[in-house]
């Protein structure tokens, strides 16, 4: 993850600076949205004017945007996921003290009532199998190692800081909007009123003053943890192991702890602990900087075709000239 000899990158360098990041543990998130509020307040970001009740969801924010840099995604499932169902079944079969999966879950059926009314295990199993599943994920800029926005930015407004985070310089950005489609995670966006792009800075200003980012500071359950990236990966791995011990086999890390050839965008500075397949949270199973993936083959094909087209034009004209010398040419097609 280190930059190595990264002095060709548009970046701020400071010797001894560590890669800093977020570890967002969705298993302890309660969906309070304190992180969203803290982010808005610290960064002085305006409201997005969301209309309550969209899509019959409690998630009024909807999406990350140029003025929403943290977004607690509410994943509401009318059906329990197969993972949850399996875990419930396994917990019941093992007959241990803990009959409930520890995944945050809620639904129309009151589990306590179900357990008290019947003879216990069977009713609980039925209740769990009918239960809706509800998970939260506090989404944020991933501060990728292979950052698509950073690759795409034509003005050098997006830079890499000494903390290996990706920061947008608002005084340089001219709002070309190319970072928006270049982000494989749908993070960065252009503000329709302001005209510039905006995204999480991992509170670069707070970091320079030795403070942790506003969202991590405000998180009441420590679902959002901030720290040196290496330490966070270690803690997150231990947390995954702990959750596996407790029977939550679906726990895994999104964006950290992978083999080098399976990393997401070269490894994410802000990574997540999830319990469902990534698509459930609106995250791609695999992603990379679209610019790095496509720019070489696309440019080769495009420039090759361009040269071929000009050569073709020359050939067409020379041939037409030769032909006309032999016999008179009518307007052709």
């Amino acid at each position, binding site marked *: 993850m280190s930059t190595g000899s990264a*002095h060709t*990158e548009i970046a701020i360098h400071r*010797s001894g600076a560590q890669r*800093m990041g977020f570890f967002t543990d969705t298993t302890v998130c309660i969906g309070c949205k304190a992180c969203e509020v803290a982010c808005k307040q610290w960064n*002085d970001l*305006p409201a997005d*004017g969301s209309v309550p009740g969209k899509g019959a969801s409690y998630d009024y924010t909807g999406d990350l945007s140029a003025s929403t840099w943290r977004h607690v995604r509410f994943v509401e499932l009318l059906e329990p996921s197969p*993972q949850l169902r399996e875990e419930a079944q396994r917990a019941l079969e093992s007959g241990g003290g803990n009959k409930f999966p520890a995944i945050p879950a809620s639904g129309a059926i009151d589990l306590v009532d179900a357990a008290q009314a019947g003879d216990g295990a069977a009713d609980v199993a039925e209740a769990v199998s009918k239960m809706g599943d509800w998970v939260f994920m506090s989404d944020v800029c991933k501060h990728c190692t*292979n950052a698509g926005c950073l690759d*795409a*930015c*034509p*003005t*050098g407004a997006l830079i890499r800081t000494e903390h290996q985070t990706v920061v947008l*310089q*608002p*005084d*340089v*950005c*001219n709002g*070309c*909007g*190319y970072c*928006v489609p*270049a*982000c*494989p995670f749908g993070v960065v966006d252009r*503000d329709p009123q302001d005209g510039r*792009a905006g995204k999480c800075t991992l509170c670069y200003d707070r970091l*320079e003053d030795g403070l*942790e980012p506003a969202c*991590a500071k405000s998180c009441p359950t420590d679902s959002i943890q*901030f*720290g040196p990236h290496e330490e966070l990966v270690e803690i997150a*791995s*231990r947390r995954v*192991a702990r959750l596996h011990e407790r029977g939550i086999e679906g726990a*895994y*890390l*999104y964006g950290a702890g*992978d*083999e080098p*050839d399976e990393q997401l965008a070269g490894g994410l500075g802000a990574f997540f602990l999830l319990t469902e397949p990534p*698509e459930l949270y*609106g995250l791609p*199973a695999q992603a990379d900087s679209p610019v790095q993936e*496509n720019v070489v083959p*696309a440019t080769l094909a495009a*420039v090759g*075709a*361009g040269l071929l*087209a*000009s050569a073709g034009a020359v050939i*067409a*004209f020379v041939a*037409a*000239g030769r032909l006309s010398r032999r016999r008179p*040419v*009518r307007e052709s*097609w």
Partner: protein
Amino acid sequence: MTDEHRWEGRLEHSGEPAELTPEDEPPTTSQGRETDWVADHDTKSRDIRPALGKPGEPAAWTAAKPGAAVPLARPSFGDAQWSFLYKARDTAYAAAEPSPGQVVSANRRMRRAQVTDVHGPFIHAPVWSWEVPLYFWFGGMASGSAFVALACDVAGDCRSAAIARRVALGALSPAPVLLIGDLGRPDRFLNMMRVFKPRSPMNMGAWCLVAFSGSSAAAVGADLLGRPRAAQALGALTSLFGSYLGSYTGVLLACTAFPVWARSRTILGPAFVATATASGAAATRLALVASGLPDGHPTRSALGGLETASMLSELVLSAVGERQLGDAAEALRRGRPGTLFRTAKSLVVLGLSLRVVARRRMGPREHDLASIMYLAAGLAFRFAWVSAGKASATDAAAVAAMGRGRRALHDVRERPRPQRAPSMDRSQLPLPGAARRAYGEAIRRASLAIERRLRHR
């Protein structure tokens, strides 16, 4: 706490809702929030400036000297003694030691688990408006005309070559206006030239636009000054720049996360070149006809052939590309992009049949009509491709399928994506470090000065 302030455990309902003035209500839409904010804060504009610099002073990106301290930096993040979970009172939150490979295999298992449900949105739709496809069309026309100018010169038709060079310059002239108009902050357009970044297609396109317009204007100037040799040389240079100007727009779209664009990465560039050549040839042909090039002249005949061949290859490339796309191709078939594609294809077919009929029965007028149809088809193709990206971005299933390396979401066959090198290596202007920084800083300050001047007016 006195008794009257004690909570009674019961909510009193007055029956009538409290009367609210409009000022008490939160705004229902985002409309006007910017102007309200500006009015409240008595500033000229909202500035989302948390990250770098001090209020009122712009920040600069400068590569700090290794070892130099960042202002106000502390040796450690004192505030980051973050967690009650596993610090002083250990809650066994992360108590277990992972076995070797445990996390790797858990990640692999879940990222390859069966797709149960897809909850979008995954990515943001592009913010580009009508200016961008229109620019693609004009830029393509300019580069196609540059090809024609080169071909005319080689074939020995110097008069037509001079006209083609003028068409190229004329077609290019709206391009900067359109591009600047599409920026969120048009007064900062100069920042496009602040860095030289081969990795960013938009940056390279901006530089190419400058180079093309420079050499194209110089070529026309040489024509006017009666220097045919210089004009020919500059025309050849223009057509070299044109081979990137007409094709980089496809690269620009391919280097994105939208399935319909990214998956046609090797198709988009060639298809855009084909449209560019056809529109350039059609525009030049019409200009030549208007300038009185006689019917039956080999240049007119060659231009007609070039138009038709290019449009046919665009059709073939589109068809091949659509087969590669899998589920993502839905974005090309439905809604607005679908209508535009169908329009474009029918215009091509119509133009082609006109040519066939005109060859047999009718005169040159019908050939001109066919050229106009090809031009319109080119415009429709540009708008279709750009709006297909918007449709594709909102197609959560297609985005998820691309993430899995599949053509369709529940396809069994996968082609995992190879790992790329980290994005550290990027070149900037080929200048010494100090000069490069001074240049970048000068451009940034010039942009801000322009912006200040324009905004205060």
